[in-house]
């Protein structure tokens, strides 16, 4: 009765990624059931393997990988938004393997499962 869904619409080079990851990790540590994270708009760039962030800057992808591994956190990628930004599932090497290729129907699913949905 305490389920959370998160929507990410900001790119990995946005500071909101830091806020989102802090929020998610805090929720997971507090044993909030996180039903999934949905990546939409520029948020889909988190899944792009070609994105290179300078090594002295915040590496959002390493945190997604860590949380995905530690908590089996589902990470859903809106493929329509991704394809607009050059990320296609026809070239699987372009998408980090921790992401599940999804569509907006998955957002409806997450929304109906969750008691609360938060956007960053």
């Amino acid at each position, binding site marked *: *009765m305490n*389920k959370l869904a998160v*929507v990410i*619409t900001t790119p990995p080079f946005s500071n909101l990624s830091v806020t989102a990851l802090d929020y998610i990790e805090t929720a997971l540590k507090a044993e909030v059931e996180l039903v999934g994270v949905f990546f*939409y*708009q520029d948020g889909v760039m988190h899944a792009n393997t070609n994105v290179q962030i300078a090594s002295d800057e915040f590496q959002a992808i390493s945190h997604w990988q860590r949380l995905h591994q530690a908590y089996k956190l589902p990470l859903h990628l809106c493929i*329509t*938004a991704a394809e*607009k930004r050059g990320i296609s599932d026809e070239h699987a090497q372009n998408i980090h393997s921790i992401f599940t290729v999804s569509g*907006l*129907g998955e*957002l*409806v699913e997450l*929304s*109906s*499962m*969750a*008691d*609360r*949905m938060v*956007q960053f």
Partner: protein
Amino acid sequence: MANSSIKTLAILNAKAPYANLAGKDALDIALIFGSFEQTVSLFFQGDGVWQLIQGQNGSIISIKDYLKTFAAFEFYDIEDVYVCQASLAMRNLPAKFHIEEVQVLNQQEFAHKLTSHKTILRF
């Protein structure tokens, strides 16, 4: 469903149409929730009010006119469309919209209506 409580989604539009994808991205979410019979309300505030103003033609600037799809809201059971009166007044825009059933609310009513929803997504 986690529980039987009604899940209502508010989509807050605060950007003008055409310059970016925000309005279209918001519309796509509204339509998919509508087609899954999930309750969804649309709010227009700030430059977002331009999305409702009649007489626009995106094709002049080679943009697909997604605003035309607003006319299909009733087929998706999207009945709650709200616009901020202060945002209209600030832009000297008349309350004349390209779809019917738009409710003009003052700032207090707008805020109250918005926060009565369980979830707010902002575009």
